[in-house]
């Protein structure tokens, strides 16, 4: 970890008490979700997949949010959904950002044919219609959770690569990077310790949005008939499974959809605040 990065984080976490209300709310929501995800088996009243009641039972003391079409407890599935959905989104986003970000920095720092080859590959991948491409790959390789994570991460990584490269191009021409080069530091060291800390803010901003897009991709894929294996609960598929109810003014699909929206807003409020701190712009 670089000093600059650590100081960013210290500033960020240390400043939480002084953070704007919106960011504080965002943090609380994120912590709440993390607790749900980690403690799902303890919190959820019923197991994830067990048939515990009749189908579509109304909201009651026994089933706080009723049951789904097979008689599984809806609240329990929402809680387990937090674990599966956030876990999946986190794994995908981190993978996309480490590979895409790292390769982007390498391309910017090395330049020349390394940059050319990487950039052309990314151009080609980005020019493919994303959803259809993912659909085709998943059909070809099977829609296991691992494949889902790898394929979405690979497609997301192209976007991250572009951003990281563009931002890093500005940084690598600056004096302190030049100085590090003259001192004879290796490329890896320069990338990690000199370039990376200075491209963090725009990457974090992107991360906030990309994180949410993962849910959407999974949801859209389940719309086209591919997605997470049943009977695993995840919010994207739960929205898809219950979406038809909306035509009758039923609120059920709004529950998993709302869970996604709330998380997205929380994450992005925190990200906005982080950006504000990083930019040093006074309000």
């Amino acid at each position, binding site marked *: 970890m670089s000093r600059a990065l650590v100081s960013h984080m210290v500033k960020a976490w240390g400043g939480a008490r002084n953070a704007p209300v919106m960011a504080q709310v965002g943090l609380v929501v994120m912590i709440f979700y993390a607790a749900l995800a980690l403690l799902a088996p303890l919190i959820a009243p019923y197991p994830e*997949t*067990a*048939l515990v009641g*009749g*189908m*579509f*039972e*109304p*909201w009651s003391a026994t089933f706080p949010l*009723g049951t789904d*079409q*097979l*008689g599984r407890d809806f609240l329990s599935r929402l809680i387990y959904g937090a674990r599966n959905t956030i876990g999946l989104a986190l794994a995908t986003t981190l993978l996309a950002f480490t590979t895409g970000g790292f390769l982007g920095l390498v391309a910017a720092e090395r330049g020349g044919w390394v940059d050319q080859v990487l950039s052309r590959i990314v151009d080609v991948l980005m020019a493919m219609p994303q959803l259809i491409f993912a*659909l085709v790959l*998943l*059909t070809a390789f*099977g*829609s296991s959770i691992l494949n889902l994570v790898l394929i979405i991460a690979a497609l997301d990584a192209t976007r991250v690569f572009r951003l990281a490269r563009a931002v890093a191009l500005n940084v690598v021409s600056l004096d302190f990077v030049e100085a590090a080069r003259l001192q004879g530091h290796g490329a890896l060291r320069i990338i990690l310790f000199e370039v990376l800390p200075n491209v963090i803010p725009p990457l974090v901003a992107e991360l906030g949005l990309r994180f949410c897009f993962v849910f959407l991709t999974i949801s859209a894929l389940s719309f086209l*008939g*591919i*997605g997470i*294996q*049943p*009977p695993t609960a995840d919010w994207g598929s739960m929205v898809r499974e219950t*979406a*038809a*109810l*909306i*035509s*009758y*003014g*039923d*609120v*059920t699909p709004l529950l998993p959809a709302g869970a996604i929206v709330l998380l997205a807003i929380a994450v992005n409020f925190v990200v906005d605040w982080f950006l504000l701190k990083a930019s040093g712009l006074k309000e």
Partner: protein
Amino acid sequence: MSDFEKWKALLLGGALNRRDFLAGAAALAGTAGLSAGLAPRAAHAEPKRGGHMRLGLGSGSTNDTLNPWNYPDAFTTMLGYGCLGNCLVEVDAEGNAVGDLAESFAASDDQKTWTFRLREGLSFHDGRPVRAEDVVASIRFHMTPESTSAAKSLLANITDITATEAGEVVFVLGDGATDFPYFLATVLLVIMPSEGGVVDWQSGIRTGPFVLEEFEPGVRAKLRRFEGYHKPGLPYADSCELLSIPDTTARTNALLSGDVHYVDRLDMRTLGLLGRKPDIRILNIPGYAHYYFSMLNDVPPFDDPNVRMALKYAIDREDILAKVLQGYGSVGNDNPIAASVKYAVDPQPVHSYDPDTAREWLKKSGLESLTVDLHVAEVGFPGCIDAAVLFKEHAAKAGIDINVIREPSDGYWDNVWLKKGFCATYSDGRPSCDWNFSVFYAADAAWNDSRWKNAEFDAMLAEGRALPDGEERAALYAKMQDLVQKDGGNIIVAFNDFVCAHSDAIDHGAVVGFPLSDGYRITSRWWFS
């Protein structure tokens, strides 16, 4: 939130009542159960002419053509057969083969020579008369070496077709077949105009109730009434339009907003809500179609009949019928012959959910527990992923662990069906024992889902084919059904009703269950109220 609770309670209550009602109605109707739309409602209004009928169908693809070698889905069948075409024969409400373009037909004593007489004054959409030669060319079109027709193997028994000078068509068969007329009711075998023995299928000019005006594959087909249709008074509507609406919610909304008058492939989960809309009618038509899980008989552990038996007892069909089919159907007993088919029996003991019996069968195969993979996809049968998840929970109580593996819909019939040991599939069923067994259970049948090979069964099948109708035939088919139920590789979950919905702007009389959706004849048999 009160509305929310109300409908759930209503649905729950409604589902139970509806099942009770259906059970009673089916018992009363007996074999004629097929003929009635069972929705409890007032008497139908008198048919009326006129109007532009719009149907929203859940199928259709940009690759569709009018070639009758194959109708991949309901859209192409409704268009190519239901609106545009007629066969020599059709299946009536009681499940009998009756003449359509043929006025009458008769067989020689050995059931090997069949003679069909055409109706008088038939004409194609462009006014040309329908000749016996056109019939010969239309059937032969499916039998040529280069034909890729799905009906090709069905017609393999035909050795010769000739048109007589008296305007009759004579079929000569290799082996006698009492049920031969049924085969000619196959929706692919529509009669088309021909020139020098070459049929014209491209133009869509046929004999059916509607004339094709515009066909945009995967989007829509527009048609107008054929004034020279041979069925008196039909069609009622002036024009009709088939729209391909693949998304279920969009289809439902189109019906709710009045953009279309009829939709198929309903979302079973929200059926209760749809039925409560005042201007929407839900119609369920019992038929021969069934949903099943298929075990390949040459793949371990399914090659052991005891394992197959254990799984047959480890599934709670009632639960799946209630939750996945919402009660619209009847539970299966691993006999593919629907109760309303001639010679149908209900083999005993009935395979009902019993974890202890399942365990006993498992013990007979020398196993304490069993783990199997069950492959499903949305196209397997509607709701089959939910059904498989339920099956998993049922079987767990019998010490059987089922891994539900969701496969992509894309490529399912190519890579999973007939390839993976255990998967979900469906059949539209057939109105005769011979037809059903020949197509799905004979050792060499192309659609033998479970690769079940039983020499005794095959011998009986060949014997029964040429038997005249009577007690001997009945006894033989009873024995065959018993064999399939006990030894076969298909776990028949339920006979599913055909369920569709229409707005109260249109109305209909008695409906038939085979082929599906009122014989695919909705556009001509239904009218504006």
